C-alpha cells in the first residue's frame, strides 16, 4: 500500500514536471521568436559574432521532459549518492537537450571557399572524336582535383543529360547522345540544367567544354542569367573541327520575281573552311539541269557564290537541288546538299476579245513584246466568271453587246468589282453603237454613251425583210428572230425600224416606228412563224414601202432569204430604192439561197452581201450591219491624241510624234472619271475610273487597222498600250510586296515591309503567313503576322528539317475586305546549323550571314563572351577551375553531425556515471 502510493506520487510528480517543463519550453520558444528575424517558421539569431538559425524550433519543446528527469531521480531506487544522482540527471538532461537541438535543425552561417564544379560538355556532331577524347582527359583532371561530392558532369547537344557513372571517374563515361540529339547545340539548356547540380553552400562554377557553335537557345541571355546567379562560367574551346576541313552548301537564292520562259540566275552559296576546288551538280525537278548539270569551281575560305543561268517554262513551282559531287577536303557529307523551291509567277495575263479574228493582232503583239501574256478570243469567246480568275485585264475590242450574254456581262461586272481590270476599246460595234445602252456594262464605263443633242433626230430607218418560208423553220427561224431582236435593241431609241416578213406573200410584222418601242417590237417578232413559199419581190417591195415616207439620214433594208424566187421587176424595184436613197443589204442562208440574185440586189442596192451556212451567224451579221449604219456617235475624221492629265501610264510616251487616229466613238466623260487623253475636239479618248476594287478604262478609238492604222505603225504603240494595260489591270502586281526571310539558327523569321503605293506605311492590317515545306510529305503551317512597327509585319517559327520553304502571306484590313497586301518568299533550309563548316561560320560578309546573335557570335568569340559576362575565363588547367580566387560564399551549414557526436560522448559519460560510483570527498575509490 505504501509502495503503491509512492509510485503514484512519483508519476504525479513526473507529469507535473513535464507540464511545468512544457510551459517553460514554450516560454523559451516565445522569447526566441521575438528575437528572430525570419517569418517562415524558422528562428534566426546571432550566436556570438555568427548568425545562426533553427529550422524547426518546435522540437525544443522536448525540453519539457527535462524536469521529469529530475523528478524521477527524486524517487530513484538506484543505489547512488544524492550528488551522483543529481549529476546523472544533469548529464541525461544535457543529452536530451542536444537531441532536441538536433531535431530543431540548427545551422550556422559560415563563409566557404569550397568550389563546386558542374562540367557541361558539348557532345554534338560538330565536336570531333579527338576533341571528345581531349575533353574526357581534361575532365578527369578536374574530377581528380575536385571533391567528389562537388563535381557533376552534364553532356549536351540538342538537349542536356547528366552523366552518372557507376564507378569513378565520371569523366570516363562521357559519350555522345543518341544520333538525332547530336544535330544541334543548345548551350543555354546545358547551362540551365547545370545550375541545379551545383552543391548548395559552395562557390558555384560551370566548366563549359564546347566548340562554341550554338544552334539553338539564347546563349548570351543564359550567360546573363548565370551571372545573376553568381555562377562563373569557365570554358574550354574544342577547336579540332576547324582543322578538319569541310565544304557545304549553305543555300540557294533566286530573283524575287520569276516569270515563265524568262531566264534567271540560281545562285548557290558554298561554304568552305579552306581554299580549294569543288564540283557542283544542279538538278531541276529531280533531273540534271541542262545544258550544264555540273560545274567545277574554285573556292575561297568562307562563302563563294556560284551562279547558274536557268529558266522555267511553266508557271508553278520548280525545285532546284544543288549538290557537292567532289571536293578537296570534305569532312562531312550531310551538309553537301541544298534545295530551293521557286514559284514562277505567270506574267500579267490579258484576255483580248475581238469582233473578228486577227483584227487586234497588232495590239496583242505589242503587249506580248512588253512581257504581257495575251489570250485572244473571238466575239463569242467572252468568258464566264471562273475563266476570269487568272486574268488580270479583259479587253473588249469592238465587241457589240449582242455578242455578250447577260450571264457574261454579270461575270464581267463581278470580275471588275472584285479587282479585275476591263478595257473597252471602240469601233463601229462598241459603246452606244454597239448597243450597250441600258446594259450592265454601261454603268461600268467611265464615259457616257448617250449623247444629248442628237437624240431627237432619227439617224437611221431600217427595214428588216425576212423570209419566213417553211424552209426557215427550226434553228434558222429562232436565230433569225434573235437577230431581229438584237438589231432592234442595239438601235438608238430615236432610230426607226420596220419588220416585213414574206413567204409567197408579204406582210408587215412591225410597222415603221421608233426603236424605243422595244417591247412592242419584241412582241411582233415573237409572232413570227415559218410557213409557205418564197416571194422575195413581195417582201422587198413592202419593206421599201415602209421606208419611203421615213424621215431619216439613212434608210436601209436588210433582206434575208434562204430560198429561190422570181427575178421579175427586182432590178427596177432596187433602182427605185436607190433613187430614194435607200440602200439594201442581202443575207443568204444555207446552200438553197439564190446567191446570185441576192448578190445582185446588194450590189445594185449599195449594200453588202453575206452568205452563211451557219444560222448561228445570222445575229452577228444583223448587228454588224446595224452597227455600220448606227453611226450617230461615230466620228470618222482624223484626230490627234491630247494629254488631258499627266498620268504615270503616259510616262515616256512622246505624244508629239503620235500620228493621228482616223476615228473614234463620241462620248462624254463621267464626272468622277479620270480623263487622261482627249481627241482634238476635247472628247474622251482614254478615260478610266475605279469600280469596286477594279478599274475600267474606255478607249474610244479602236485597236485595229481601221481608225488606229497609223498608230499601229507608231514606235511607241506597244509601250503606250503596255503601260496603259499595266496601270488598268488587276492590282495583284502592285500590291505584291517583297518578303524578307531569314534563318537564325533553327528559327525562320518572316518580315513584310508594307509600304503602300503612296509611300506610306500600311498600318492596322491583319493576316497570316503560310509556310509550305517541300519535305515528303509536304508540311504546311499558318502563323499570324504581328505588326511590330508601323507597316512592319513579322512572324517566326521553327525551320523544320532540311529542305525548302515556300512562303505566302496575305494581309487585310480588319473590315474583312479582300487582301490588300500579298507577299511571297522562299528559303533554303540547309543542313543542321551544327554542320556549318567551322571557318565559314565566322568568315562571311555581314550581308550574307544570317541575322541573329547566335549566328553572328560563333565559335570561340561566343565562349569568350559567355565567360566575360559571368566573370569566368578560359580554363587553362584543372587547378584554374578549382581555384576559388577571391570568391567566397556565405552558406548556412547544418551542425547536426557535431552535435550528435557530442551527444554520443555525453551518452558514454552518462553510462559511466551509472556504472562507476563516485568516491566521496577524501574517500578511497573502490570497485
Amino acid at each position: 500500500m505504501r509502495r503503491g502510493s509512492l509510485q503514484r506520487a512519483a508519476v504525479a510528480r513526473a507529469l507535473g514536471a513535464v507540464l511545468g517543463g512544457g510551459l517553460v519550453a514554450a516560454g523559451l520558444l516565445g522569447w526566441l521568436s521575438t528575437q528572430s528575424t525570419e517569418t517562415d517558421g524558422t528562428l534566426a539569431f546571432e550566436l556570438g559574432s555568427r548568425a545562426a538559425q533553427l529550422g524547426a524550433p518546435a522540437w525544443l519543446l522536448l525540453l519539457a521532459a527535462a524536469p521529469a528527469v529530475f523528478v524521477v531521480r527524486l524517487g530513484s531506487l538506484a543505489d547512488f549518492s544524492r550528488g551522483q544522482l543529481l549529476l546523472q540527471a544533469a548529464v541525461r538532461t544535457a543529452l536530451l537537450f542536444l537531441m532536441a537541438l538536433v531535431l530543431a535543425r540548427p545551422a550556422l552561417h559560415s563563409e566557404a571557399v569550397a568550389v563546386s564544379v558542374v562540367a557541361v560538355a558539348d557532345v554534338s556532331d560538330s565536336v570531333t572524336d579527338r576533341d571528345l577524347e581531349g575533353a574526357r582527359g581534361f575532365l578527369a583532371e578536374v574530377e581528380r582535383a575536385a571533391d567528389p561530392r562537388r563535381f557533376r558532369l552534364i553532356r549536351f547537344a540538342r538537349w542536356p543529360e547528366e552523366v552518372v557513372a557507376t564507378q569513378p571517374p565520371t569523366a570516363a563515361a562521357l559519350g555522345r547522345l543518341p544520333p538525332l540529339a547530336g544535330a544541334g547545340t543548345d548551350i543555354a539548356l546545358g547551362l540551365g540544367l547545370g545550375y541545379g547540380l551545383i552543391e548548395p553552400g559552395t562557390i558555384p562554377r560551370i566548366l563549359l567544354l564546347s566548340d562554341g557553335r550554338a544552334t539553338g537557345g539564347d546563349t548570351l541571355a543564359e550567360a546573363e542569367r548565370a551571372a545573376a546567379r553568381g555562377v562563373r562560367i569557365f570554358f574550354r574551346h574544342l577547336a579540332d573541327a576547324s582543322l578538319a576541313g569541310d565544304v557545304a552548301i549553305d543555300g540557294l537564292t533566286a530573283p524575287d520575281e520569276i516569270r515563265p520562259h524568262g531566264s534567271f540566275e540560281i545562285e548557290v552559296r558554298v561554304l568552305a573552311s579552306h581554299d580549294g576546288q569543288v564540283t557542283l551538280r544542279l538538278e531541276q525537278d529531280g533531273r540534271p539541269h541542262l545544258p550544264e548539270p555540273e560545274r567545277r569551281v574554285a573556292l575561297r575560305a568562307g562563302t563563294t557564290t556560284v551562279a547558274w543561268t536557268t529558266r522555267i517554262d511553266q508557271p508553278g513551282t520548280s525545285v532546284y537541288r544543288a549538290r557537292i559531287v567532289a571536293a578537296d577536303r570534305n569532312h562531312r557529307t550531310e551538309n553537301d546538299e541544298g534545295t530551293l523551291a521557286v514559284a514562277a509567277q505567270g506574267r500579267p495575263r490579258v484576255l483580248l476579245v475581238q469582233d473578228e479574228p486577227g483584227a487586234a493582232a497588232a495590239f496583242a503583239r505589242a503587249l506580248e513584246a512588253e512581257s504581257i501574256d495575251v489570250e485572244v478570243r473571238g466575239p463569242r469567246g467572252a468568258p464566264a466568271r471562273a475563266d476570269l480568275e487568272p486574268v488580270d485585264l479583259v479587253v473588249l475590242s469592238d465587241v457589240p453587246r449582242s455578242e455578250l450574254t447577260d450571264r457574261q456581262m454579270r461575270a464581267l461586272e463581278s470580275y471588275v468589282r472584285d479587282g479585275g481590270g476591263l478595257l473597252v476599246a471602240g469601233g463601229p460595234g462598241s459603246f452606244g453603237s454597239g448597243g450597250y445602252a441600258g446594259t450592265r456594262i454601261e454603268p461600268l464605263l467611265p464615259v457616257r454613251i448617250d449623247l444629248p443633242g442628237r437624240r431627237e433626230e432619227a439617224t437611221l430607218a431600217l427595214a428588216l425583210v425576212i423570209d419566213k418560208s417553211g424552209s426557215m423553220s427550226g434553228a434558222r427561224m429562232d436565230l433569225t428572230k434573235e437577230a431581229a431582236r438584237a438589231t432592234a435593241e442595239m438601235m438608238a431609241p430615236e432610230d426607226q425600224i420596220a419588220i416585213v416578213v414574206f413567204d409567197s406573200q408579204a406582210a408587215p410584222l412591225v410597222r415603221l416606228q421608233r426603236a424605243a418601242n422595244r417591247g412592242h417590237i419584241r412582241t411582233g417578232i415573237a409572232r413570227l412563224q415559218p410557213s409557205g413559199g418564197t416571194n422575195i419581190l413581195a417582201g422587198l417591195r413592202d419593206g421599201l414601202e415602209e421606208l419611203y415616207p421615213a424621215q431619216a439620214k439613212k434608210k436601209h433594208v436588210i433582206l434575208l432569204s434562204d430560198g429561190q424566187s422570181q427575178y421579175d421587176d427586182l432590178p427596177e424595184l432596187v433602182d427605185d430604192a436607190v433613187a430614194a436613197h435607200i440602200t439594201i443589204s442581202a443575207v443568204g442562208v444555207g446552200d438553197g439561197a439564190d446567191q446570185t440574185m441576192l448578190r445582185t440586189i446588194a450590189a445594185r442596192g449599195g449594200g453588202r452581201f453575206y452568205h452563211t451556212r451557219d444560222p448561228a451567224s445570222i445575229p452577228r451579221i444583223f448587228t454588224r450591219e446595224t452597227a455600220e449604219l448606227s453611226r450617230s456617235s461615230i466620228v470618222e475624221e482624223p484626230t490627234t491624241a491630247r494629254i488631258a492629265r499627266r498620268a504615270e501610264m503616259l510616262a515616256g510616251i512622246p505624244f508629239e510624234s503620235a500620228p493621228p487616229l482616223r476615228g473614234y466613238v463620241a462620248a462624254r466623260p463621267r464626272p468622277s472619271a479620270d480623263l487622261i487623253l482627249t481627241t482634238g475636239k476635247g472628247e474622251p479618248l482614254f478615260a478610266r475610273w475605279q469600280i469596286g476594287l477594279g478599274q475600267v478604262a474606255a478607249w474610244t478609238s479602236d485597236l485595229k487597222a481601221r481608225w488606229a492604222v497609223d498608230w499601229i505603225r507608231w514606235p511607241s504603240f506597244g509601250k503606250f498600250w503596255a503601260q496603259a494595260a499595266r496601270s488598268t489591270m488587276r492590282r495583284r502586281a502592285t500590291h505584291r510586296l517583297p518578303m524578307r526571310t531569314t534563318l537564325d539558327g533553327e528559327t525562320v523569321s518572316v518580315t513584310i515591309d508594307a509600304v503602300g503605293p503612296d509611300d506610306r506605311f500600311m498600318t492596322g492590317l491583319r493576316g497570316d503567313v503560310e509556310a509550305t515545306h517541300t519535305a515528303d510529305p509536304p508540311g504546311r503551317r499558318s502563323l499570324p503576322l504581328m505588326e511590330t512597327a508601323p507597316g512592319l509585319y513579322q512572324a517566326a517559327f521553327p525551320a523544320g528539317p532540311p529542305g525548302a520553304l515556300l512562303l505566302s502571306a496575305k494581309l487585310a484590313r480588319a473590315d474583312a475586305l479582300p487582301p490588300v497586301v500579298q507577299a511571297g518568299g522562299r528559303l533554303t533550309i540547309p543542313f543542321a546549323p551544327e554542320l556549318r563548316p567551322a571557318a565559314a561560320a565566322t568568315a562571311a560578309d555581314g550581308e550574307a550571314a544570317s541575322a541573329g546573335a547566335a549566328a553572328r557570335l560563333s565559335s570561340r568569340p561566343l565562349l569568350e563572351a559567355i565567360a566575360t559576362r559571368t566573370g569566368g575565363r578560359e580554363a587553362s588547367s584543372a587547378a584554374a577551375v578549382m581555384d576559388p580566387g577571391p570568391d567566397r560564399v556565405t552558406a548556412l551549414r547544418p551542425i547536426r553531425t557535431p552535435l550528435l557526436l557530442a551527444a554520443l560522448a555525453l551518452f558514454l559519460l552518462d553510462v559511466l556515471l551509472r556504472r562507476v560510483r563516485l568516491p566521496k570527498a577524501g574517500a578511497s575509490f573502490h570497485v
Partner: protein
Amino acid sequence: MTIFGLTLAGLPAGAAAAIALVGAAALTGLYLLKLRRRRVVVPFAPLWAAALGETQSERLSRRLRRWLSLALQMLFGALVLLAAVDPRPAEADRAGRSVLILIDRSASMSATDEPGSRLGSARRVARGIVAGLGPADRAMVATFASGVAAETGFEADVRSLEGAIDEVTGTEEPADLPRALGFAAAALRGRPHPTLILVSDGAYGANARAQAPAQALSGVDVRFAPVGTRGDNVAIISFAARRDPADRGSVQASVVVQSFRDGPCEVALEIGTVADGGAQEGPGSEGAAAEIVVVERARLGLAPGERKTHVLHEVAAPGARLVARLVRASGGGGGGDDLAVDDRTYAVVPALPRRRVLRVGGGNLFLEGALLSLGGQVVVRRVSTAAAESTRARWPDYDAVIFDGVAPAPAPTAGRFLYFDPAGAGSPFPARGALRDPVVSDTQKLHPLVKHVALADLNVREAQRLTIEPGDTAVASSFGSPLIVARVRPGLRVAALAFDPRHSDLPMRTAFPLLLANAVEWLASAGVDTDAADVATGGVSLRTGRTFRVGDADIPVARVGFHRVATAGGAAGAPAAVVAANLSDPVESDTHPSAALTLAGRAWPRPPDAGPGGPRQDLWAVALIAAVALSLFEWWSYHRRWTV
C-alpha cells in the same frame, strides 16, 4: 557510399564504424564492471541473513536486467549514430518517382487575379506538391520563361526543394513552352518513374502547343497544376517608331492595343515623351519612374478580342524616347486589368545619322535637287571632274562619293562609291556597248538600294551594257543586262546606275530621291542591316528573343523599359545607344487561364495529392526521435530498478 540501397549523407561510413566499435567496447566494458556496494553499517546481523539468502532465480533475474540495460544502451547509441550518418534512399532507388516540378514564371504569371499573384499561387501549389512526395521520391524544381533552368538537382531534401520554390521570382519575359518541355524531357530521361508536374496558368498559343515535344514526353507521367482564376486584361501589344520611307526626316509611331476581356471596355491611351534627364540612368529598365510629357491622348472603345491601331505622324525629334500607356478610362466600361507589364510600352525614335557626301562631276540640277531633298542629314561637298584627283586621298573618309558621269581611273579599291553612267577605263563595271530603250524586267526588291523604289515602266533612252563580276548583284536589270549594280568587297562598296538619269524619266519620279537616299544609307552603313537597325532602335520585343544587336553590341534584355547600351569599344564620351524593350506578346497578354492542358491530343491530369508510400520523413529524424523516447524510458526503468 551506398549501403542497402541507402546513401550516407552525414558521418562517413568508416568513421561511423569506428565510433560504433569503440562505443560498443566501452559500453560492454562498463557493464562488465561490478558496481561496488555501498558500505552501510547495519546493527542487527540477523537481518542480513535474509538479505544474503537470495535465491538463485533472483540472482539470474538481476543479471538479465543488467544485460537488458546494456541492450537498451546499445540500441540508444546505435540510433544516435544512425542519425549522425544520415542515411537516405539511394539515387538508384527504383521504387520512388522522379518528379520534375516545372514552374512557369513568365510575364502572365504576374497577373494579380490571385492573392499576391499567380506566381505566389504557383509557389503554394509547388510546396503542396513537395509536401506530398513519398519517402523514396526525388524531385527537381525547375523554372521557365523564355529560358529554362533547374533550381535544384533531383533530391529528397524537402527543405531544399521548398527553399528553391520560395526563391522563384517572376519575369517580364514570354514563356517558351516547347523549350521548357524539351528540357524537362531531357532531365527526366532514364530516371525511374519520371513525372512532370507543370505549374502554370496555361497561357500558351496554339503554335507553342503544337510545337511541344510530345514524343519526348511519351513515357513521362505528365501532370498540370493550374493557377489563375480569370482573364481580364487590356494590353498594348506593339509600340514602335519608324522613319517615313518617303521622308526620312519624318517619323511615324504606331500603337496596337488589344482587349483580352470578355466584355466591351473603354481605355484611355496616353502617349508621351520622356523629359530629358527625367529618366533614371544605368543598366536595366528605366523609364517607369521618368517624368512623361503627354503629347497625345486617345480614348479607345474595344469589343472583346478587338485590336486597334493608333498611328502618330511626325512624332518627335530623332533619338527621343516615347512612352505609351493605358489608363483606365473614366466613365465608360473601364473594367479591370490584371497584368501591368503590358500597360506601359516604350519606343525610341530612330536617330538619323549625318552623312558626308562628296559629289564629283559637272552641273546636274536633277542630282542637286535630289540631294537637297535629303535635308540637313546629308552634308554635300562638290568638286568638279577636273579636281577629282586632288581629293582621291580623302575618298575613304566620306560616307558616300558620287561620281556623276565620270569614272576616275584607276578605280578606287577602298571606300564607298555611287556611279552614274560610269564609262572609260576607270569604270568598275566595264561597258560592252549600249542598250537602246531598256525596260526594267527584273528587280531585286529586297535589296536595300531599291527599298520602296518603284521602277516599273521606267523610261530610259540608252544604257550601257555593264559587265559584272561574280559576287556583284544586279539589283535591277533589263532582260539580263544590269541597270543598277551593287558590289561589296572587303573595304569597298560600290553602287552604279548603267545610265545617265538625265536621259531617263527617273528624275521626274519620287523614286529618284528615294533611290539616292537608299544608296547613301547603304554605302554609309556598310555591313549594318539598316532595316533591322531601324526597328531595333525603335523598339524590340521580348517575344522574339532576348538578345538583340544594337550597333556592334549584342545585348540581352530581360525587362521592359529603356535600356542604355554602352559598347565596350565606344569612344569616350560618345552617347550610348538607348533601346526600348516591350513584351509585345498577345499570347502572354491573354491572361485567360487554362483549367486543363491538352498537348498533342494527350490530356494532362491534375497532380495526385500525395505520392505512393505516404508522406516522407527524414530517416535521421525518425532515428533520433526514437532515441529520445528510448532515453526517457531507460531513465525511468533504471531508477525504478527495472534495469540495473
